[in-house]
């Protein structure tokens, strides 16, 4: 049994709809619809391992700023974006915080930390 999966390439404004033919074991047997080489390498990667950088905010204590911007230090699986949010909602950071400081270590056991992208002065 094979099935067709579609990935939209984000490499350029063209936004090619790339069709992947996927075999029974999940192996990609055919790639079509891409108009350049980049699409051909992007599509299987985006299909097999769609990852994103999570960007959000966390609450602060003793600061005039109510929120501190944060992000995952590295991309995490796309499907973990929404489940990560309640974790961040439960965090309150206290000044001082420097850019790059770890705010949540090992987010949802991904091995990826959530780090501060802004500063919080005390």
């Amino acid at each position: 049994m094979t099935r067709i999966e579609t990935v939209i390439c984000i490499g350029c404004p063209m936004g090619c709809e790339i069709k992947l033919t996927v075999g029974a074991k999940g192996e990609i047997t055919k790639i079509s619809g891409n108009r350049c080489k980049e699409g051909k390498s992007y599509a299987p990667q985006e299909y097999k391992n769609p990852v994103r950088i999570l960007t959000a905010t966390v609450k602060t204590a003793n600061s005039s700023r109510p929120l501190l911007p944060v992000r995952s230090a590295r991309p995490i699986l796309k499907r973990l974006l929404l489940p990560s949010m309640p974790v961040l909602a439960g965090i309150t950071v206290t000044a001082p915080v420097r850019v790059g400081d770890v705010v949540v270590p090992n987010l949802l056991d991904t091995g990826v930390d959530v780090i501060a992208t802004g500063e919080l002065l005390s």
Partner: protein
Amino acid sequence: MPEGDHSAFGELNMKLDTEVLIIGGGILGTSVARELSRYRVDTTLVEREVDFGWGSTKASATVVCQGGDCLEFRKEYRNSRFVWDSIPLMEPLCRELDVPFKRIGSLSLIRNNNELVKYQKMKNLADKYLPDLEPHQWIDRDTLRRIEPHLTRDVIGALYDPKPAVTDPVRLSIALAENARENGTNIMLGTEVVSISRGTDSFEVQTTEGLIRTRFIVNAAGVYVDKIAAMVDADEFVVYPVKAWIGVLDKKVGDIIRHVVTARPSRPGELIFVNPTVHGNIFFGIPLQLNKRGDYSSTRRMSQAGFATIRSLVPDVSEKDIINSFAGYIMYRNYELGWHECVVAASRKIPRFINFCIGFPGVSAAPAASKEVIRLLSSEGLQTVEKESFKASGRAIPDFSEASDEEKKKLIQKDSRYGHVVCRCETVTEGEIVEAIKRGATTMDGVKYRTRAGMGRCQGGFCSPRVARILARELNVPEEQVTKKGKTSRLLLYKSKELLEGAVNEPA
């Protein structure tokens, strides 16, 4: 909460006694309140909104001292008499209360010979009716091009009336109310009249905030004037709600028109207009339309008609220059006949009940008509003894953007918050916003109408988070309780992360 707001009752459903109750805090209600505050009379004013002038007053084109249009204004109408009598009163009133006023004159466009004949008749009538006021003048095409170079070329001339001026009707209402309050009037905002019952020598008025017992009622409820009158069977008149639509142009084209310019479509009573405002924008409007009351929405058709109108008068205007538009209601008598008369009368059936509705042009007629209301109250039995302590003058909030460099320097030296520009489009400072809140603004719109913060080309995009924060701080309420215009119009429904924590409170 500022003084006078809600506080009169202490707690809900307490009873309040007053001699005169004014229902409505628009230009008419506040004019009567201020006029009445000259006398030793215990007066209370109730307004359903949380601020003054948010009904018909707000929907005004801001033009006053018109009335020279004697096709519209005829001596057989009382309405005309109030408009004419107010012409000499308006400027001193605005000066006294420190409200902007600028006399700019009006031009009635003459587009063909039929119209010329009409305007000849109008000029003759005006010369006859208004011998003491500055007369009209004919303007030829060349002069018209010189004084209004952007105006349509499709005209044969114009009739110039030097009297019309522009002001800020909402600010005038606020100034009148502030002055009345200073002279002892009890003012209750956010207080809606629910029912009125009649006793032998008084009325019991049930409001959303409690019961008020009063001897006299002045019904200046604007769009709801007939509904209020009907509560005591004093609705001896019929008014129709007609919808006015006004478009606003960016200040950067603010000098494209310098006078009030009107043209007359074929139907009597209909008028299209364009005029500069006292703050440097341009307003333009389409003929009034009969409409369902309370529907303040503007429609696509109105916008299209509005744009077609402005283009027919000022062809250079582009759609990009329009920064806002709004709709409002004017109560109109005899709409079906095309002429309009006001209601300024004591009820024939119900003693001590005065109905007060001008409709169009309410702001222009207010000074003289409110004096008439005092006369009516007195003939209904109210004792009007003048107070010696009456203080006539008011002072506006400093206007930083209009101030000279020297004045700016002084303002900042006195209070550094005048050095903090919050609204960049209109150059409104934190100092002005704080002062507006001190004087009674409790909402975003309240701040906007007093200071113009949020009225510029970005329409609050930049300053609204900042104004909301200042409001919360000065009123000492959580920021998510700040409203656009009172009641349920909260700006921000949730705190950050609130929706993720599960414990979500439904907004009230």
